[in-house]
């Protein structure tokens, strides 16, 4: 395999996909080169063999044999179909994450990659995973279409705003591998780089148990971190406050800690939200955004399902701004001056 990769300028194969894909790549490209060279060779051969000898010589009217044509074309089509079958089987594998994969949430935004792990760790532009175990990425974008591309793993997936997409891989050897954004997303598209750190099992265990990894960020730093051209966070939060007031979110949600028609926003971000049954969910950006767009999903236990949807009302930047504002209400905040009833009745907003 190594010499194939050397010949074709391929990066090292660091995932379980790489060997199969690279072998198929080699087969297809070899056929391509042989085919093109063959065609050119025959053309040159005919050029010489049938070069014009007499300036005024006529030529005979010849027709191809249908059988000959069908045979050649049929064999070529057959070869293409074989390529397609193998490629398709591999593609299905690429698109089918296994059930026991480690989950990582990925948020793409201009111009950085944010990773959230299951144990609430977060990092920017560094993805840490163990070797030999499948990892599933659940990804969304905060603004425009990006594309998560790891050449060494041979994976790529467009990351689209307004929906979640998945990609998965299983790394086969420890090391650091490049992540590129592969869909043009604005002025700093070529700077939207990140790294995958694949750790050997022991190193990964250590990473899980300690918090010494400088790639991990405290929650505040995570939120504050900027990339080239990011909006000033304080501006965004202030905008969020204005939007929340204008859209009358504050008619049902307080910011001083008192539950009202809806849960209070103070301390909400990153809190554990109890749901029906014994389920819980972390109130992260995804949850807050989802609550605005699809409030009937994951209703906070103890509150009535009366929140209307803001799909079609709030633009994506407005929703993001509100989330930023809610984040600022994590610590401190204002003391309640008035005691509010906890249930103001159905349809309290108006």
């Amino acid at each position, binding site marked *: 395999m190594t010499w194939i990769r050397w010949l074709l*300028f*391929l990066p090292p194969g660091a995932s379980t*996909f790489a060997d199969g*894909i690279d072998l*198929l*790549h080699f087969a*297809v*490209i070899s056929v*391509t*080169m042989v*085919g*093109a*060279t063959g*065609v*050119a060779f025959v*053309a040159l051969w*005919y*050029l010489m063999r*049938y*070069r*014009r*000898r007499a300036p*005024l*010589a*006529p*030529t005979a009217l*010849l027709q*191809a044999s249908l059988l000959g*044509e069908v045979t050649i*074309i049929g064999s*070529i089509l057959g070869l293409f*179909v074989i390529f397609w079958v193998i*490629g398709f*089987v591999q*593609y*299905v594998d*690429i698109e089918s994450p296994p059930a026991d994969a480690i989950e990582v949430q990925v948020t793409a935004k201009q111009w950085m990659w944010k990773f959230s792990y299951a144990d609430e760790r977060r990092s920017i532009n560094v993805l840490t995973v163990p070797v030999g175990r499948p990892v599933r990425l659940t990804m969304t974008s905060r*603004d*425009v279409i990006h*594309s998560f*591309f790891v*050449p060494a793993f*041979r*994976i*790529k997936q*467009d990351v689209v*705003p*307004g*929906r979640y997409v998945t990609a998965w891989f299983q790394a086969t050897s420890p090391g650091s591998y490049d992540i590129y954004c*592969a*869909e*043009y997303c*604005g002025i700093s598209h*070529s700077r939207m*780089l990140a790294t995958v750190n694949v750790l050997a099992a022991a190193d990964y265990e250590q990473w899980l148990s300690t918090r010494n990894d400088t790639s991990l960020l405290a929650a505040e730093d995570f939120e504050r971190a900027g990339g080239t051209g990011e909006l000033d966070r304080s501006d965004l939060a202030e905008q969020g406050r204005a939007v929340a007031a204008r859209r009358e979110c504050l008619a049902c949600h307080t910011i001083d800690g008192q539950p009202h028609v809806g849960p209070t926003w103070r301390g909400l971000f990153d809190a554990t939200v109890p749901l029906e049954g014994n389920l819980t969910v972390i109130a992260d950006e995804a949850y807050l955004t989802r609550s605005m767009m699809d409030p009937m999903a994951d209703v906070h236990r103890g509150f009535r399902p009366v929140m209307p949807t803001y799909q079609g009302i*709030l*633009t*994506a930047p*407005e*929703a993001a701004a509100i989330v930023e504002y809610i984040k600022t209400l994590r610590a401190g905040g204002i003391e309640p001056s008035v005691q509010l009833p906890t249930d103001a009745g159905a349809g309290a907003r108006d």
Partner: protein
Amino acid sequence: MATTADLAQPLPEPRRAARGRSYLSDEVTIVSWLTTTDHKRIGVMFFVATTLAFALGGFFAMLLRLEHLTPGPTLVDAMTYNRMFTLHGVIMVFLFLVPSIPTAFGNFVLPMMIGAKDVAFPRLNLASFYVYLTGATLVLYSMFANGLDTGWTFYTPYSAQSPSAVVPAVTGVFIVGMSSILTGLNFIVTVHTLRSRGLGWLKLPLFVWAIYATSIIQVLATPVLGMSLALVGLDHALDLGIFDPARGGDPVLFQHLFWFYSHPAVYIMILPSMGVISELVCTYSRKNPKSYKAIAYSSLGIAAVGFLTWGHHLFVAGISVFDAGAFGILSMLVGIFSAIKVFTWIGTMRRGSIVLSTPMVYVCTFLFLFVFGGMTGIAFATTSLDVHWHDTYFVVAHFHFIMVGGALAGWLGALHYWWPKITGRLYSERWGLLASALVFAGFVTTFFPQFLLGNAGMPRRYFEYPAKFQVLHVMSTLGATILAAGLLITLIYLLASLFSKERAGNNPWRSAGFEWRTSSPPPKHNFTALLDVSRGAYDYTELPAEEEAADP
């Protein structure tokens, strides 16, 4: 095969500049050109306009390549670079590759190839020229206004948000698309209604079949692009949010709409070149096509199946596995039609009487580069491989192999083949061979390293890149310089030939094609007598005379 010439006029001495009434010398004022309805003059005007567009697109290409000499900023900043690659794409695709062969060469020779005096709607033809100019002007305006940085593919939501001059640019492309539709409409009606008596469909020159198939795609696919771009423009100007997820829109839907046109569009760009190759192979091998029907029908096959493959641009965009499978297999199928053509062309050379003049060099260039580039298309349709290659330089190399190695080689071949027909002059064969060699060598040096860059993982549309990619980039830029030199030399010797006093003669290649059965340059109404179609356009059992028609 003498045609009834006007014998009252004494035949001028051979090899002197013609003084007879050709389409060029019949009325020489600028106004007569600007208000002409003669398809030949309109073809010449389109040629000049589209070639200027090509030069501008090429200028941007050189700047892009020079920028990539170093990994970091070299000549310009990021925003300027992003605008340049976008404008390079928009200008090359919409202002050059789509219109060039049909509007320039199609306009000039197609009516002659069917024995007609003009196209079906000559005034509409002139109108389509001015519509093209209007659209092109808007695109140029956007270039000066705030540029355009969305990529020629205008993906949403970025295109709705981009701070660049999106609205004038998409309006300009929309208008150029209208010109494209009118051209296609004109050619379809021309081929249906103005064929000479006795000229059935299966006697038509293969270039006519190619233009016909191209025209069908132009009429049916371009409106969908127009609508997609109009929506982007409206979204940008009025914040309609059609593709905004927060308002119930789906950004990926734009990609479906866009590629529904733009994939057939690539066949608009290559089919006319394939038609040219058919003509060149037969003329320079002095041979009939190995299987006329294979080439004619495969053109229609490409047009039809080409409409069914657009999803292969979306394999990693979030489509279902089923869709990916379907589009993959259909993409394999469309490649078969091209394979049929290639084998037929090669087979045509067999037992021919071949001379390696400059157009034939372009045929060989086409055969090698198009097959190579086309096979990489098959490689892309092998879906798992596309995951790695999508949006990398592998894609850039693939489509440049087809568009430059294929379409441009056909355009250059057409230019040299029909140069004596259009201008009555012959270019210097020596310089032609040199320039075509430079074009081939320059092209391969420019774009082959880009396949390797893509394999290595270099994404496209990157202003800056990791240093490990530099060597391949430098090689590619070197190749671009050689390619540019070859093209510049071509321009020079072609222009120089216009000042030569030597006449080309009516049929310097001794082609059996119908357009060569009249003088070069032709008279205003193309033929001075009825075209005799009993001898086919590819019949070399008896060699055509060098002077098919007496001078007018």
